[in-house]
Structures are given as structure tokens and as C-alpha cells.
């Protein structure tokens, strides 16, 4: 089955979403990610969505859910690389992703997480 790779960098986990999300894939990602946070004792999650042209309400909710789950496991989530068009669409849809931190790119996101965990 198709899975979204999760890379570990120190105590951070990096998830790059490059394919269209569907229910099965999203559930698998939530499952994998929560397991990895516990196993790797991660304290930060970076979700890179720079490859996504379209983010609909489904993906928006999934990202919010992942952030909430990670928070329960004491890890901070940062969404990075959102495109301008995607940001405008999300705002117009009323999905402002409350509780999710954002950064312009992976580098900034990583700096944000590291400064918090120091």
C-alpha cells in the first residue's frame, strides 16, 4: 500500500506530502505519525505541503487533526511551504487552521521548532 514517508531529523519528524490525499492515505499517515512520535521520542513535526496545488477542506481538517494528536503526545506541529493560492482558498473556505503553526519553508519551520525546544 502507498504510504507517505516520514523522515527523522534529530528529534524532529519531516513529512512531505506530494501526492493527492485520500481517506485511506490520511488515516495511514495519522497512524504512522503518532507511532513514530512515540517511538522516536520526537518533539516536533514538520509537514511540508509545498507540492500541493490544491488543499481542500478534507486535507485542511486532516492537518488540524494531526496537529492536535501531536500536541497530545507533546510534539509541536509546523505546516510549511503553503502556496499563496492555497492560503487564499483556505481562508475563503473559513479553514484558518487554528492551533497549527506555520512557516514559509522547511528551514524557517525547523528554526521555529528548535527555538521553541531550547
Amino acid at each position, binding site marked *: 500500500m502507498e504510504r507517505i514517508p516520514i523522515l527523522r531529523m534529530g528529534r524532529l519528524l519531516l513529512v512531505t506530502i506530494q501526492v493527492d490525499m485520500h481517506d485511506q492515505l490520511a488515516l495511514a499517515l495519522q497512524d504512522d505519525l503518532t507511532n513514530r512520535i512515540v517511538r522516536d521520542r520526537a518533539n516536533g513535526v514538520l509537514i511540508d505541503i509545498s507540492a500541493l496545488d490544491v488543499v481542500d477542506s478534507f486535507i485542511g481538517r486532516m492537518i488540524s487533526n494531526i496537529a492536535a494528536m501531536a500536541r497530545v503526545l507533546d510534539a509541536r506541529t509546523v505546516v510549511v511551504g503553503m*502556496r499563496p493560492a492555497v492560503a487564499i482558498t483556505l481562508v475563503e473556505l473559513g479553514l484558518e487552521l487554528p492551533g497549527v503553526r*506555520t512557516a514559509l519553508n522547511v528551514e524557517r519551520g525547523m528554526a521555529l521548532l528548535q527555538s521553541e525546544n531550547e
Partner: protein
Amino acid sequence: MAQTDSQGLAKILIEQEQQLVAEWMANLMSTSSSAAGDVRLADQCTHLLRSLRQAVLTGQTRNIQGGEWAEVRQLLTEICYTRARQGATPRETAIFVFALKQALFSRLRESVADPALLAAQTLLVSNVLDELGLFTIEVYQKGREEVIARQQQEMLELSTPVVQLWDDILALPLIGTLDSARTQVVMESLLQKIVETGASIAIVDITGVPTVDTLVAQHLLKTVAAARLMGADCIISGIRPQIAQTIVHLGVDLEDVVTKATLADAFAVALRKSGAAITRAATAR
């Protein structure tokens, strides 16, 4: 009957073209100031008269929207567009056509002896020229609307500059009311600039926004939310005392947004956030 009327009219248009143009122009000179300055007036009159003749000869005088009148309409459209762009009033534009009426009436009176025929032809001329006069008004209106649409577009582009104040600080000075179309443009240019410059702080300055109602506030909050999704913090500055009062009275929630009274304050906060500081040089006086 209508056929013979238009034949008779066409005959006058052919035979007395010179006199008609002269009289028409004389009428125009005396009534309209803008027409008097146009060097191509004689040319325009002659052309229009000739194409009018062609159209009248076809006998289709009831409806000027038909194919027979295409040339007349095109000529009139060109003339009206030029006039409208030169700032002529609709009245002056329409008078261009109506002045021909006087000229034609007097020609008719001289050349047609039979009272019944004269009445019929007068009616015909009157109908045709009224239609053409209305047509000029329509064209004039259209020309003006195009001017307005172009100006709106230009204003939209002019009024949304995104300025880079520091390495990672952008400023967005908003001037004029924020409607949804402008918000869209503002948002797009701000987000685009964030991507280009990698800025992490954006200052939205609303000093130039005359009033803030719930709709404008909502648009502002949308812009802030979109910038946040791109990883940039927003500061709203330039809030005047009256606007602060209105915001509170309207119950708009700006709790989650950093707000400052002046752009200078906002800039100071932005600098501190990005770890930079401005100090006065020791040597400067």
C-alpha cells in the same frame, strides 16, 4: 409608400449634398462648441451623409439596427468615441446628429411641393434621425463606461503596493475602502511578495482606509489569516481613534492580531521580533 418616401429622401441627399453639408456644419458651429474645434468636421459630415444615403436607398428606414445601416453605425460609433474621450457632453454628441435634422427639413420644404408628401418625408427624416441620435447616446454611454472600467482597473493596481521595509519585514499601506475585489488583489500581492522576499512579518497599515465596518474588518482578518498560513506574522497599524471606537462598538474581535497606533510603532515591534535594532550613532547630533 415608404419605398417612394425613402427614394425621394435619397434623391435630396444626392442632389443637394453640398448645401446639406454646409447647412449642417453651420448649425453645428452655432450650437456646439466642441464640434467647432474639430478640423475633420466637414469630412465626418460628408462621410456620414453618404453612408446615410446608401442606407436610405435600401428602403429599410424602420430599423437602424439592420445590416443596411452597419456603415452608418460604424461611422457614428467612431465619431462618438472620439468625442466622448475628448470630454464632450452627451448633449453635444447627440446634437451632431440632430443638427442634420434642421438642414434636411429646410431642404425638404424647398424641394417638395405636395403637402402630404412633405409631411410623410418629414416624419421619415425625423424618425431616422431620432433613432440615430439615440444611438449616439448609447455609444457615448458605452465609451464612458469603458473609461470608468479602465480607471477602476488602474486604481486597483495603483493602490496595492507591497513595500519591503527590512530584510524580512513587509509593509502594506492600504489606501481607500476595502471591498472584496480589492481584498483579493491585496491578499494575492502580499502573499506573492512574502514568497519572493521570504519575509516573516507583514505590517498592514490602514491609515488611508477612511472607515472600517464589519465587512472591511473581516477582509482585514482574512488577509491576516492568509499571511499567517504562509508563516508570516501580521501587525495592523495606523488605527485612528475613531476607528478604534468603531471596531469596539461593532464587536469586531481583533484579539489575536497585534495592533499598533502608528506604522513607526509597528515597525519597532517588527524589528524587535526579527532580532534587529536601530540605534542612534554616537557621532550623530
